[in-house]
């Protein structure tokens, strides 16, 4: 899992039925010192994160696990909101 900062939201009315009702957030991956790394990506939110917050997200097949038993077509999901972190 990795850290990211929520940049904003993505609105898509025409989408896969399994995505209906899910919040799509635009996130910027960051390193442990809060510097941006790589390109922004779209992640599904399962914890109620908001713009500007730091979050924990995961990628790949497991991104759908918060929504089991449903089959949600997502390869990135936010699974935690960071209150603070400390890194050497």
């Amino acid at each position, binding site marked *: 899992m990795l850290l990211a900062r929520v940049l904003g939201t993505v609105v898509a009315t025409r989408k896969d039925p399994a995505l209906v009702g899910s919040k799509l957030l635009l996130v910027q991956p960051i390193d442990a010192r*809060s510097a941006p790394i790589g390109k922004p990506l779209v992640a599904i939110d399962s914890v109620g994160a908001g713009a500007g917050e730091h979050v924990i997200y995961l990628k790949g097949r497991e991104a759908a696990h918060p929504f089991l038993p449903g089959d949600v*077509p997502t390869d990135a999901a936010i699974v935690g909101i960071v209150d603070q972190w400390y890194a050497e």
Partner: protein
Amino acid sequence: MILGRVIGTVVSTRKDEKLSGSKLLVVRATDPRGKDEAGYVIAVDTVNAGVGDRVLVVSGSSARMASGLKDVPVDAAICGVVDAVDVVGGAGAEEGSRSDVAPVEPGGARKATPGLRDGRA
């Protein structure tokens, strides 16, 4: 998932039988403001997207969870047609991702970037 724009279609008559009936579209990756980026992907369309549409593409084995693609050999599927991308503060992703930009409270008051603490928490 990545943001992209449909720039073309692929026609393939001789293909894996499970792919028959699937619409194959060429999708160019874009940044949140819609600017083209390097790289493209051939994605199966499951939401009736058309050339020029801004779309959401799911990649990897999660693509097979798009409707109707359970056992289809795909690793990229279009799972949404994007209406809008709202970046807080209206700044583009590049500006929005500057590390000194403190997150904005819903009320608009800025709060210190939680990020790195000097002393131990």
